[in-house]
């Protein structure tokens, strides 16, 4: 017995060293995981700390001289308008593209076509902004004139249309291009996970391809589509460059084809580099508002995905 205890056999010593290695390694992994939670918490904390001066400052000191609330609500509305335009355009197209890749395209081409759509996501946002400002705005301006002439009785198309085309509608169109690949790739994965038996049962009953999609694919994919759209919304709300470069900003206006309106992200990007003093705090407070909005949207989307984990689009 005693002899066994004394022997420093190679098994016991290496075990001691190995145990320490295990501890260090699992500790490092745990720390990294906690660091992520700390960062997210830190994002909120530092934004709040730096934003407080803007909340408590006298109303006259805030830009516009009417207090923080009067400063923020038009650009919150502008952000929502731009994101809404983007979603209204992108959602039907994205679902169509996803269906095309999952159920219409020849099987051999499908993955290649999916890669082409993913290229849309690879193009940097500033390039989209430059494209929107230099190409799209110019090309689309005549269409706005036409809208103002023929649909001007609608408040959203009230003339006179912007001659440069640098309007919130153009910004929304550029945003829709940017959220399209997000909605497409998530919806595509969900459509591909439709149970084959459901599809074949529908076809065997004599359904056409569209009826099969309507009866089997879309009902199955509905929660996935909703969360994909929500994630797209999160992206559209926070996207900066497309709006900062494309939109010639101004006060809140109902007409989508006049210059005017502004979004939170663009407001920060345009003003932060030259800002100082209380203006910095005001912009950080605006960032905090944006953070809270996108956080809420993303959390709802993720909650929907985890609720239907068996066809989660996240993996």
């Amino acid at each position, binding site marked *: 017995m005693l002899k066994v205890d004394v022997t420093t056999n190679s098994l016991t010593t290496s075990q001691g060293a190995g145990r320490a290695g295990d501890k260090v390694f699992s500790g490092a992994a745990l720390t990294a995981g906690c660091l*992520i939670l700390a960062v997210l918490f830190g994002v909120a904390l530092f934004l709040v700390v730096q934003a407080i001066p803007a909340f408590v400052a006298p109303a006259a000191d805030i830009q516009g001289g009417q207090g923080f609330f009067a400063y923020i609500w038009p650009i919150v509305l502008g952000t929502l308008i731009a994101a809404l335009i983007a979603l209204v355009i992108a959602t039907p197209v994205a679902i169509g593209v996803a269906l095309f890749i999952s159920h219409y395209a020849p099987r051999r081409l499908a993955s290649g076509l999916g890669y082409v759509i993913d290229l849309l996501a690879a193009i940097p946002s500033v*390039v989209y902004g430059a494209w929107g400002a230099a190409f799209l705005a110019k090309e689309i301006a005549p269409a706005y004139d036409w809208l103002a002439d023929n649909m001007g009785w609608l408040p959203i198309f009230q003339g006179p249309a912007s001659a440069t085309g640098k309007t919130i509608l153009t910004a929304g169109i550029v945003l829709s291009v940017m959220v399209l690949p997000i909605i497409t790739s998530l919806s595509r994965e969900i459509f591909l996970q439709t149970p084959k038996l459901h599809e074949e049962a529908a076809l065997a009953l004599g359904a056409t391809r569209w009826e099969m999609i309507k009866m089997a694919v879309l009902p199955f994919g509905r929660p996935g589509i909703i969360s994909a759209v929500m994630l797209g919304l*999160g992206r559209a709300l926070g996207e900066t460059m497309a709006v900062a470069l494309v939109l010639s900003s101004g006060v809140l206006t109902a007409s989508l084809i006049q210059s005017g309106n502004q979004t939170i992200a663009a407001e920060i990007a345009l003003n932060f580099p030259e800002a100082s003093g209380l203006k910095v705090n005001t912009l950080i407070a605006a960032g905090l508002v944006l953070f809270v909005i996108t956080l809420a949207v993303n959390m709802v989307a993720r909650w929907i995905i985890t609720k239907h984990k068996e066809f989660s689009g996240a993996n």
Partner: protein
Amino acid sequence: MTVTAPVTRKRSALTKGQLPSYAPWVVLAVALVLGAAILALVGFNVFGWGVVSALLFTVGLVAWSGMVEGARKAKDKLATCLVVGAFLVALLPLVSVIWTVLVNGIPGIITPGFLGTSMNGVTGTFDNKSVEEGTRVLGGVYHALIGTVQITLLATVISVPVGLLTAIYLVEYGEDRPLARAITFFVDVMTGIPSIVAGLFAAAFFFAVVGPGTKTGAVAAVALSVLMIPVVVRSSEEMLKIVPNELREASYALGVRKWRTILKVVIPTAISGIASGVTLAIARVIGETAPILVTAGFATTINNNVFGGWMASLPTFIYTQILNPTSPSNPAPSDQRAWGAALVLIILVMLLNLAARLIARIFAPKAGR
């Protein structure tokens, strides 16, 4: 003897009430001709021709199908047309963006010295001169390239260890604990943080810790890591998950410690996927503009110190050249530089994407046991 057979087969009960297989091509040809004719009346352009022809094709095919095959088949044809149309519509901006960048960017990028010089000393007078007298456009993106490479590299150095270790925790140690579930959830939420908010966070953090107005490349790198970490975690987690459990168990059975198993068995098996995921994450953040804009300032000169002084980067270079041209009265040279920089940036991103695919293919574990 059976001379009439082919004729009767054509009108058999099975194929009755169906459009012939050549129907879409006939309708397409008619639609293209009609579209060209209509466009010729109002002024021809290729884009309008495509749109009008597509509409005519859809209407023609659906109407014909409705007459011959009935409403259900017609609806199916309509859905097919709409779905294919959606795909073509999605391709339009991609083609248009790449075309615009190529056409506008090539003159900038072939200007001698574009990749090798900075904007140091390039003022509006030089730009005015190049417009008025046709001298070559001075200035380039060297300082921005240096900045982009340094900031992205530093962000990668921060994000990869944190992201990879987190993924290891989630897959190897988490075991569905509440903490692991919380991390998964918040990593997903973090992917949705607007890039400008990440930039504001880094700015606010350094304003509070170092001092107000701190703007360096390192602050931008921190901002980019906030965006990059969740991407690295997600992709590495997926890759670690698909490492077969038999490999781990074989290693444990040999008496190998868990950390040695992870380092020597699990990670080498998944390394191709992890590396390609990291490359894609780099490709994602290299084009981010907003966070660098609020954290690194603008520089027109070469700054090799990522920890001190303002720093330029390709995206912010594009942004400032478009929004604040060097010569306000003659923005053309600035536009040329901006598009040149955009082309360089797109080439970088595409190369990174390509590299990710190659890495995934080349370093993939050998199949077969």
